[in-house]
């Protein structure tokens, strides 16, 4: 065997360092999966019905009698919906931040949440809040419409990141105004329902709603993971990405579409759950770095754990009242957001 040259040694050293990095990040991913699982178990073991962890796990296997039935019918759907919503919002946020190259971007800054909110308010105005299917359908349709409007604007200007952000902000203000107009014209009953929709809630989660949310949230996951190298290159700038063969416009438009689908699917049944799409990607970035092969799954797992944790805190902080999930995630997310802003002034992201 010939002795290693200096260059070979450098390559071997680099490979070893890379393997170590991948190992560390894989371990972090495993830890996050464990955290997510722990959040699920914690969420399953906490409730008003005085059913502990043992009974709750027994219920999952089909036993437990009446208490088991309560766990399967009322507690488990909440856990599954919380996990799906957190995963969807966090991965949508990570994608949006990458394709806009903006640390403060999220599906909310693109106006998609405002569109969903207006859609829900329109559904309540036309059909009443108890027609949950109409409210959710209207919310989803308006979120999708918002994404289309923003994308059309962006395509007209070459799908530049700045155009997407400015278009999103403009659409956000438009839908906020339309939402206020409907609230102004609504009856007291409708206003009551509209206000509470914006607080967010996991209490409405049933298996039908979960199935529809899963259809919106899960299929984009493998598609986004397939684009992780493209997203990595986009972070280096449009020109760099193009020179490496990335179809920038296609990835940007496709990414926004998938992020919009995940966001709309996540919040149309649950109401606005803020800050997960902004905070989870940043927390994941601190843990696994900016490589989207790790960042996307890490932020998804962290988002799911955050929503489940916030829900448990919301249910246990002031029992038997439930602090709405939208309020709870914002209460937890805002301090972190301020910290991010301070970090940003030091040039780190």
């Amino acid at each position, binding site marked *: 065997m010939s002795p290693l040259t200096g260059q070979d040694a450098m390559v071997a050293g680099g490979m070893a360092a890379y393997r170590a990095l991948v190992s560390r990040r894989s371990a972090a991913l495993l830890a996050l999966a464990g955290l997510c699982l722990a959040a699920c178990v914690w969420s399953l073991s906490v409730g008003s*019905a005085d059913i502990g962890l043992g009974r709750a796990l027994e219920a999952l296997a089909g036993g437990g009698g009446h208490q088991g039935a*309560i766990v399967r019918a009322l*507690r488990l*759907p909440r856990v599954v919906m919380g996990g799906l919503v957190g995963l969807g919002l966090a991965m949508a946020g990570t994608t949006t931040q990458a394709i806009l190259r903006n640390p403060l971007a999220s599906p909310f800054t693109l106006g998609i949440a405002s569109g969903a909110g207006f859609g829900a308010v329109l559904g309540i105005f036309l059909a*009443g809040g108890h027609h949950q299917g109409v409210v959710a359908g209207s919310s989803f349709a308006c979120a999708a419409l918002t994404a289309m409007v923003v994308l059309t604007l962006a395509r007209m200007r070459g799908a530049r990141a700045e155009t997407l952000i400015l278009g999103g902000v403009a659409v956000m203000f438009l839908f906020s105004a339309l939402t206020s107009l409907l609230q102004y014209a609504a009856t007291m*009953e409708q206003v*009551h329902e509209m206000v509470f929709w914006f607080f967010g809630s996991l209490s409405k989660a049933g298996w039908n*709603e979960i199935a529809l949310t899963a259809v919106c949230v899960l299929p984009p996951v493998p598609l986004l993971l397939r684009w992780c190298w493209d997203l990595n290159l986009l972070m280096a700038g449009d020109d760099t990405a193009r020179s490496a063969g990335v179809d920038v416009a296609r990835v940007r438009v496709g990414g926004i579409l998938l992020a919009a689908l995940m966001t709309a699917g996540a919040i149309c049944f649950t109401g606005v759950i803020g800050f997960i799409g902004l905070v989870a990607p940043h927390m994941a970035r601190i843990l696994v770095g900016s490589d989207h092969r790790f960042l996307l799954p890490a932020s998804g797992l962290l988002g799911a754990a955050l929503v489940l944790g916030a829900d448990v805190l919301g249910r246990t902080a*002031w029992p038997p*009242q439930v602090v709405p999930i939208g309020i709870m995630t914002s209460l937890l997310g805002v301090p972190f957001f301020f910290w991010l802003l301070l970090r940003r002034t030091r040039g780190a992201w």
Partner: protein
Amino acid sequence: MKRLCACKTCRKGPLGLILGVCLTLTSALVPWAEAGSWPVVVRDALGRTVAVPAPPRRMVVLNSNALDAVRILGAADLVVGVSSLVRNNTPYWRELAALPEVGKWNSPNLEAIAALDPDMVLTYGNNPGQEIEALLGPLGITVLRLDFHHLSTLEREMEVLGRVLERPDKARDYLAWHRGWLERIRSMVAPLIGGAGGLPKAYVESYASYRVSGPGSSIDEMVRAAGMRNIADVMAVPFAEVTPEWVAASEPVIMIKAGSTRDSYACSNPDWLESKRRSVLARPGWEHVVAVRDGRVLVLSSDVCPGTRAVVGVAYMARFAHPELAGSVDPEAIHREYLERFVGLPLRGCYAVGEARP
């Protein structure tokens, strides 16, 4: 010298100022001024003293519950402007619905109010904000805040309005009817709730799903008057969110859902209330809630709870919770009497779905 008060009385100069000070002292010492002597000092929904300088002759009414009270007192002809709530509900309000509209109940157009040259605006305790006193006061308009929203304050507020409108007899007449029915229902329910089972437990949901009507809400007062225990009586806020699991674990045997603020009087088909009840019965996992499993879900129109017809709502609730009362409590008959005697309307409309018919 800077004026302490901007009402018409005080704008008359030093004499007005002295009178204003006297009024304030009087109100502090004597909460109720003598009937027939003007100005009259009354306590409003916020517990503040309000001096009404003279009997109102032109009123703008933003609070639809208060408009009901004005009509009960036979003073509808004094009303010159109403909120959009009234304009949207023509069959019930009849000629009042044709009056000029001054905007929403919580954000009225103050210029439109002023243009009607009223001497009084009757509105809710907390809505709109207190800027309207500051802005309308200098125009000589007295703002009187009365809610007519809670059973606990309805009687006092009716007395206040009767005094202000110089119709204390009519107020007494209504209050005798209201108290009479309330006492009858309470006395009929009392022997039924002393048994081993105690008060039947009720889950009382507000307009929004999974939000209770807890302590401090007007519906909670009605539920208790109807001989039930609100499972949300442990809540610290009136409209808290709850989990379905908590509802199931609390084992309510009755569920009462707040119905529509749509015009129940014009309704000929209770589809709207029915669909609300169906959606409750179909909620995922709610088969574990005793009341839902047993089909004991009553959806009640907000037209009969709260407000001046609250006793009708209490009667619906009492009959629903205590089927033994079916022969002696007839909400429809009480409602008919109210409408024919105090409003001059025949009974029609849809007010409740879900109850077992006697």
